[in-house]
């Protein structure tokens, strides 16, 4: 199983530090949540971990090899990314979009075969988009597009999933459905997940490791018991927080 080892990572946005000297080990089927307020650099850090952006300092090793020396095709078989938003200047159908997840596995003159179509169809069914295969992506709702992004990742089938706000635009039922799906994949196939999350309670329900970005380069990481205390969270969000007892443990409410 792929493992991403991060050491001594410095990331800046302009003059603002996102993290300094961050050490992190992603692998072994853990489910990480990145928490922090707006502008703390969650997306920037995620892009850095995906190799989309150069860190200011530090090393990223994918299975022991420096990430930036590996061919992108190789990386794409190990690391998949759900970006915050999608661009489409040119029209594409839902099926075509789900199929692009197969790109890293196909030779340059090779066409998608029946097996690739089967994978894409399974992925679309898993996120509840079956029956929409021929629809133009531009006519989908925000939530449907989000689920299509997840379906593309399912066809890509990497070992390490980096997801930027996967529940964005999703209704309550779809949030749970998608996160259940991701968790099931993680548990059954040992996929490692890293999710940028704004909903603290969903993060608590689905993740077992947490990375907190306080801004100004300060970070904390660990299990819920280690880092998700009231004083830490109030410091993290700059807002008073309360807990209630819920059916699955504590539920956090902003004060």
């Amino acid at each position, binding site marked *: 199983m792929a493992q991403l080892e991060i050491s001594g990572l410095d990331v800046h946005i302009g003059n603002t530090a996102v993290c300094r000297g961050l050490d992190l080990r992603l692998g072994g089927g853990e489910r990480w949540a990145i928490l922090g307020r707006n502008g703390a650099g969650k997306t920037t850090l995620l892009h850095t971990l995906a190799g989309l952006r150069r860190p200011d300092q530090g090393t990223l090793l994918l299975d022991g090899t420096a990430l930036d020396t590996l061919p992108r095709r190789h990386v794409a078989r190990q690391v998949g990314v759900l970006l915050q938003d999608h661009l*489409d200047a*040119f*029209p594409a159908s839902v099926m*075509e979009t789900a199929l692009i997840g197969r790109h890293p596995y*196909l030779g340059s*003159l090779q066409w998608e075969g029946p097996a690739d179509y089967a994978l894409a169809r399974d992925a679309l069914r898993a996120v509840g988009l079956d029956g929409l295969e021929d629809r*133009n992506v531009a006519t989908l709702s925000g939530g449907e597009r989000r689920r299509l992004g997840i379906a593309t990742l399912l066809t890509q089938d990497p070992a390490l999933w980096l997801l930027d706000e996967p529940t964005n635009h999703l209704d309550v039922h779809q949030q749970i459905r998608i996160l259940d799906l991701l968790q099931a994949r993680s548990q059954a196939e040992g996929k490692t997940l890293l999710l940028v999350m704004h909903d603290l309670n969903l993060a608590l329900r689905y993740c077992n490791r947490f990375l907190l970005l306080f801004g100004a380069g300060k970070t904390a990481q660990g299990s819920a018991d280690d880092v998700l205390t009231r004083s830490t969270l109030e410091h993290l969000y700059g807002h008073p927080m309360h807990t209630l007892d819920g059916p699955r443990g504590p539920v956090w409410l902003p004060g």
Partner: protein
Amino acid sequence: MRPLLLFSGLLALALAGFGWSLTSGSIDIGWRELAAAVFDTDPDLHARVILELRWPRAAAAFVTGALLALAGALMQVLLRNPLADPYVLGISGGAATGALLTLLLGLGGLWLHGAAFSGALFSMLIVFGLAHGRGSWTINRLLLTGIVIAAGWGAVIGFLLALSPEQNLRGMLFWLMGDLAYAGMPLAGFIVLVAGLLIALALGRSLNILAHGELAATTLGVPVAALRRLIYVLASLLTAAAVTMGGSIGFVGLVVPHMLRLQGVRDHRLLLPAAALLGGSLLLIADTLARTLLAPRQLPVGILTALVGVPVFLVLLYRSRELHGREG
């Protein structure tokens, strides 16, 4: 649209275009004589001679149109802008400057082609170097550099026109509007077209993915920076080959890819060869009209591409809006 139907339709269109072009002109040749000459059953010397004169012109029109449509489709993906055409980055301006200089100096023939091609390459290198700057090569930077260089060429062209004696102006204006009268047999252009098409086909799936955005393409394993440089060089060379043969023939490169996209051809592995076939056929038909419409007077084909292309494109656009209305 089914690929088989699409390509058999396009091939039929291309063959019909060639047939019409070869049988049209000041001297009548019927389809029967054409078939006889092509299949060598009845070596009628008269028809032979006429065809040997018409064939290079028809072939040049087809190859030029194919080059332009292919280059246009590539530029549109590169700049992720459906409004891009092969000339948007100033390549035709460089070619025109070279061509007008030779016309001004009274040189012709091979000099004209050589100067146009050198001008196009020169312009391509300037834009490439300037847009590259120090590492960053964003779409906007490339587009702005190209547009500014194109504007600069525009000024140089205006200056050359102002300097030229009256008797040269007509030839210059024809070149600027696009004219295939001096294209000659398009052997070099044909080689560039075939090589370009093969490379473009190998890049096809990567182009599909690049259309989803650079970040998304990178995460799917596309080496975006290298791919974009390759597309830029490829599209530029295709454009340079086309303007060298026919001057700045407008419209084909912008509109042909959209005609196909409006018909639902989205996969670049189909779109690129289809654009080459359709662009070639369209320019062949336009050039035949340009030769025959006001015969014996010949029109610059650039005027005809727009006259044929505008209504065809508007009809397609109108019909597709109806379709979208029903879908949405």
